[in-house]
């Protein structure tokens, strides 16, 4: 469980996160909002790339903000990036092993864990294939595998379906839905694809201009008047 309270981030005069308070329970939670709402900034706070001005983040009883960024990954915070960051020079196996060897998972089960995770995400390529030779879908899956291998406790997926065609997004949705079989992690999914979010997440939180404007059951949230207004603009409501 992740408990965020009063989280504020300031970049000069801009406040990408404004006193955000929210709880994420075990399972897959959606985090949506228009562009610039602060979703990625929130992920960057969790993974330690951005220092918040105030507020606290507690995950499974540990104070996340006190840990150095690379230690958070070791503790179990994993993420994918909006622009996919699979390491091109390395093989599929090495990409995933990279996260495993810097996690708390025992090295004796590395080979098995890595190969299991590669097949869990549905990668059918040779594990020795260089990531630089793979297509967009497979690279995304490599990145997701890297986030899931070992013993993740918090998995942050930042627009994993961005740029993927519909059928590949559907496959990715399948993988995300099956994550609870693979690990006990809290998964937070950021995406603009509402069908992906509503099919994967039973609960969803909505950010707009750095403020949490709604949180709850996904279907309720998507019908919420404030959420509709945030996405479509006030003009659309007035008409």
């Amino acid at each position, binding site marked *: 469980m992740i408990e965020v309270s009063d989280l504020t981030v300031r970049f000069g005069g801009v406040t990408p996160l404004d006193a955000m308070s929210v709880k994420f329970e075990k399972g897959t939670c959606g985090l949506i909002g228009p562009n610039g709402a602060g979703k990625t900034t929130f992920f960057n706070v969790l993974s330690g*790339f951005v220092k918040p001005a105030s507020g606290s983040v507690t995950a499974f009883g540990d104070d996340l903000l006190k840990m150095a960024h690379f230690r958070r*990954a070791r503790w179990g915070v994993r993420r994918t990036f909006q622009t996919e960051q699979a390491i*091109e020079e390395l093989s599929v196996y*090495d990409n995933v092993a*990279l*996260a495993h060897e810097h996690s708390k998972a025992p090295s004796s089960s590395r080979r098995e864990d890595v190969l299991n995770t590669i097949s869990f995400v549905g990668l059918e390529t040779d594990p020795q294939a260089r990531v630089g030779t793979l297509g967009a879908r497979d690279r995304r899956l490599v990145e997701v595998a890297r986030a899931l291998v070992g013993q993740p406790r918090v998995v942050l997926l930042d627009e994993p379906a961005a*740029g993927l065609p519909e059928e590949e997004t559907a496959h990715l949705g399948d993988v995300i839905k099956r994550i609870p079989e693979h690990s006990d992690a809290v998964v937070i999914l950021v995406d603009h694809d509402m069908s992906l979010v509503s099919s994967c997440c039973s609960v969803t939180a909505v950010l707009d201009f750095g403020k949490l404007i709604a949180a709850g059951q996904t279907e309720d949230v998507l019908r919420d008047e404030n959420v509709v207004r945030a996405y479509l603009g006030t003009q659309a409501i007035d008409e």
Partner: protein
Amino acid sequence: MAATGVGSAERSSLSPGRLQPRSLVRPAVILALLLLVLFLIPAIVSIYYVDAGTQVAIYAIVALGLNVLVGRVGLVSLGQAAVLAMGAWVAARLLFATSLPFEVVLLISGLITMVLGGLVGLPALRMSGMYLALITLMLAGAITVALATINFPNGGHGFSGYNGSLLHLPAIRRPAIAQSDPAFYRYSVIFAALAFVLVLAHVRSRPGRAWAAIRQSESAALAAGINTTVYKMWAFALASFITGVAGALLAGANQFLYSINFQTQDSITILAVVLMGGIFSLWGAIIAALLMQLLPALLNSWGVSSDWLLILFGVGVLQVLTTAPAGLIDQVPKDIRRLGRGIRRLAGGGRAQPADAAASSDDAPASASAALDGERAAAVAAPESERAGEGS
């Protein structure tokens, strides 16, 4: 990936059945080449080229260190010549002051240089790119000035071991098994080979993976739990260690060291030849050493001014930066294949079609990532505009 050559071998042999014989052939070929270099070359060439060969072996180690820093981790250091000078100084001092076996002196010089070179690498933790290059260049300049003031040990007493008198200076001793020039050549080649093994072992294991991640994206590395500070320092430590060993070999090879032989601008030449040799392949370091040490020896024996080298290196670096980022180690085999196809096409005019297809597939690896990036950019852009459409 350890070397682009290894990479292509792995890529083309996906079935495990084919992987087995290949993985044995490769070390066998390397071993055969090593034996050839060790025994055949000193037997057939003059002592002049044997000495040049010793320098090639030593500078291959230096180039290898820089290859790791720039090619693996993405840290541009312009201080390698100074690190080499420190290694040579420490080794010379130890060789005059103690009667330790030469191998032990190599090891100690490597370790001491590792600590000193690590200090040169400290700015790397905060800086990157041009700023790191500038800082390391300045530090190298400072070290060169300091060493020129202290002077290189030549059998004197005290901390510096410098004896002002220029007559009857004792030579820096060599190992008992490598007193003659050909023997010291073999000795240097063996230590260069060991340095390659050491670096290969790093590149193929945990630090190699971490370095690849750091080079592509520091945030991806951090998100995977990699302590980027530690791994950058590790790279500097490894590069400094082998460069220190190279310095100790240089002390034994030259037997007399003068500060005039260690100049700050050598660092820039080393970077230039490493880029030309091929930054993404460890074997590029050998090409780099040949360019830096054998080429001047050849030009010298042909009576051509070595100033031409500076022009050649300048043009070479420009060529690498503009058309062949993977350097000679990648470009030459590709060009030879292309030439072969051209000849075959000329020979059999009717079969031009398949040859063309092969030509375009060969170009594919070089442009694959660029094309992929473009594809991805387009793919990412598309849904964005769709969304905009939905919103309005």
